[in-house]
């Protein structure tokens, strides 16, 4: 399969960030009862199907491990600001 070109990816990334900002703006402006009701409906709908997951436990853990290896996510920990180190 041919991956999407860089221009398409960049456009898609910007659109997603725009959407996240719009969503945050809406959540900020809506009463807690309203935004949380909508969030609940969505999460509960996904939750209702949680037992339909088509993998075994072993397959699931294996998938997570592989996804982590392939992920672009950084691993480890970045350095804390100097003045905050070892304050714990």
């Amino acid at each position: 399969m041919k991956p999407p070109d860089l221009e398409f990816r960049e456009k898609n990334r910007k659109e997603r960030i725009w959407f996240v900002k719009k969503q945050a703006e809406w959540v900020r402006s809506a009463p807690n009862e309203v935004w949380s009701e909508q969030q609940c409906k969505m999460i509960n709908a996904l939750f209702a199907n949680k037992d339909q997951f088509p993998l075994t436990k072993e397959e699931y853990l294996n998938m997570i491990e592989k996804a982590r290896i392939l992920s672009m996510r950084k691993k480890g920990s970045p350095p804390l600001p100097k003045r905050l180190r070892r304050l714990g």
Partner: protein
Amino acid sequence: MTIEKKGDILIIQNRQLSQLDLFVCRILDILTDYTSYVIVSGYVAILFGRSRSTEDIDIIIPFCNYSIFKRIHDTFIERRYEFLNAEDASGLYSILVSGSAIRLCETNSFIPNIEIKFTKNESDEYSLTHRIELLIDGKSFWISPIEIQIAFKFWLGSEKDIEDAIFIREVCTDFIDKDLLREFCLSFGVENETS
């Protein structure tokens, strides 16, 4: 969204709790009998209203000795939870001590699950030591300080992480220490501004 700040506590009233939130509450009710904890990563964004779900909730706990861990383990097993990693208490403890995470779920229902790990670096220690209490309709969620959470998500760098960071930053803008956020971003080598 209305968030009140009373002292160091953030309070969100009248927020409906989802099945995911209730699952997390049930686990935390047990865990807090034995140890402190801090919630990090994606679930923090969800607590603040991000419209997404998650398969796993990341929790950091301080290092504890085996006998305390065994009590935690046994209590969860007695209450019909299980650990996804195919290990007994001793094996699970070894995983934690090695710096890896273990996964806890309701018996025969491995999504969602709680990913638990010991503090293993200064960022973890900072998050745990400076954790903040988020009170949602009387239920307590101890979360990572917002400033390090945002900077760390930017540092992780996946699309989902960056979107979570932006969301938390925008929603919590009234409570963020902007100088501290800038300091974390500088130290982590990440940009706080996104376009």
